[in-house]
């Protein structure tokens, strides 16, 4: 019995730590989505598909063109940032004055488009980089370097956005627009420019996430569906547009998935997380950190 408990605890601790490591990347994605929602008041349903584009970018740069990983990553972040800005210019800008739900549906169209574009161009094969990072053993627990790297880089990315938002003029303007999008143009802020910059930052965060996720997962056209829905739930749970709430909710979700997966299949971890989400909608409809009214 004693021995059983010890082994059990080791696995439990390993799952808890893996959950935290997963939470980092989810927090990064949630930040990108929240930023776009908070500033432009648009939900990009196709956000995870931008990650898929980035993962394909990484795959081709590293495997086909033999660019080293550390050089491919920034290129890829730029690529997805560009896709983000383009998405805003082509799809969102003409719809800015339409009902918000139309914008959401239009990005749903982009989701179809990107998924099938990838299917048409690259086929439905699963591809992976073939980079095998070593595994770190601590005591009897094992953590892959890929996850540790992802967690570290995600935190660096989140901090960089935080510094940018709080220390630069553009960042201040972005936060101001998020507070009142009608007044700020009167104060001499070019809303169009700010929207494009925000979309590019949101895309860039998806690009960073794709560089990290490509080390852990195979790329295929539907890979976005494996973390897209979860990212939306995190954002809603944290309160759409609430940066800190999204950060906390990402870790809560990651722990539920990781611990749920420990006791049963990974899918049941997701089911638990979704169930928890709906339960929380009863208790805290405005998000985890919202004040009760």
């Amino acid at each position, binding site marked *: 019995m004693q021995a059983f408990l010890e082994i059990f605890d080791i696995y439990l601790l390993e799952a808890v730590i893996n959950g935290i490591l997963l939470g980092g990347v989810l927090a990064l994605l949630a930040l990108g989505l929240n930023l776009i*929602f908070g500033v432009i008041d648009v*939900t990009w349903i196709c956000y995870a598909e931008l990650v898929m584009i980035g993962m394909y970018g990484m795959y081709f740069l590293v495997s086909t063109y033999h660019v080293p990983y550390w050089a491919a990553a920034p290129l890829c972040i730029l690529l997805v940032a560009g896709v983000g800005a383009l998405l805003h210019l082509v*799809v969102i800008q*003409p*719809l800015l004055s*339409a*009902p*918000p*739900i*139309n914008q*959401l*549906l*239009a990005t*749903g*169209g*982009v*989701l*179809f*488009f*990107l*998924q*099938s*574009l*990838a*299917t*048409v161009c690259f086929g*439905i094969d699963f591809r992976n980089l073939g980079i095998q990072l070593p595994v770190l053993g601590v005591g009897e627990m094992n953590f892959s370097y890929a996850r540790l790297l992802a967690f570290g880089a995600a935190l660096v990315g989140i901090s960089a956005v935080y510094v940018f938002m709080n220390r630069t003029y553009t960042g201040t303007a972005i936060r101001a627009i998020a507070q009142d999008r009608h007044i700020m143009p009167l104060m001499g802020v070019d809303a169009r420019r700010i929207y494009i910059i925000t979309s590019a930052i949101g895309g860039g965060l998806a690009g960073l996430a794709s560089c990290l996720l490509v080390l852990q997962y195979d790329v295929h*056209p539907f890979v976005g*569906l494996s973390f*897209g*829905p*979860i990212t*939306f*739930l995190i*954002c*809603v749970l944290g309160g*759409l547009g609430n940066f800190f709430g999204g950060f906390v909710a990402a870790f809560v979700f990651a722990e539920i998935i990781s611990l749920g997966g420990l006791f049963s*299949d990974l*899918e*049941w971890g*997701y*089911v638990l997380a*979704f*169930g928890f*989400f*709906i339960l929380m*909608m*009863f208790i805290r*409809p*405005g998000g985890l950190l919202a004040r009760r009214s």
Partner: protein
Amino acid sequence: MEGPTTRSMAGWAVGALVLIALPFVWSDPYPLHIMIQILIWSFAYTSWSIMGRFGLVSLGHGGFMGVGAYVTALLWNHLGITPWIGIPVSLVCAGVLALVVAYPCFRFRITGHYFALVTLALSGIVLQVITASRDLTGGSLGFSPKMMPADSIFALQFRDKTTWYLIALAMWAVGLLIWRKVDRSMDRYALEAVSEDEDAAAAVGVNVTVEKLKITVISALMTAFAGALYCQYQLFITPDTVSGISVSLQMVFAAVVGGVYVALGPTVGAVITILLAETLRIGFGTKAVGWDNLIYGVLLVLFIVFLPKGILGSTLDWLRLRRRRG
């Protein structure tokens, strides 16, 4: 709205007769198969737009459809319960699910984006539950109801396409009748007021939560029914064809393209999307994988930007404008 004139009544009667007579005159299995698909999906799209027209954009309808299909099929295979009982049970399940998710949403004023995302979670849950309980459902490999050796009313299995065509036609007609019923009811005015301004609607005495719940449950029941019949017709379902986000988005897409605000809009959407997919499949074979969705995606964006009332909605508007001028 003017009452039914003799001319329009005659038009409807002729249309109905032509549709009923069609399989007896022209019974090639392939076109009939396409017609049945169009009718079943039209019904599903109609059930989405019955609430979608009031600004209640749900991305959870893939979930209701999955419940309808899988509950019916699971009861048949594992407990031997006939679909005649299984379908009502699956409808009750979908209705309860709709209440559980929609009540807190409406009670706590979760609208617009939030409502879409919460219902998106519902699609996700149903998809994951079906995939995860693979011992019962076969997981992502799909699931077939046990076949009877011959046609059976008890098992609701028919090999004859004409029978299925008539069943699907009846279902589709009932869908349109429900649409008409809603369209002519006080609830419609209440819901239109709610979609404009919830507070103002509540102030003039509309029970916002109850009105929205009613329409959501109606819509969920219809969608689950579509799922169940789809399963009975195809005799093969996978989690991805009847549930999940892609199915939800597919419904939204077809409804928006056809027109959300007119009764036959979703049907027009179903005709366009299914014919497009079939044409591509026949024209390009396996090379066409992905092309249909690629075109859907572009069209969806274009429609929302330039023609938010859909093909049928915009055409009717244009005709009305011309008649008034001429």
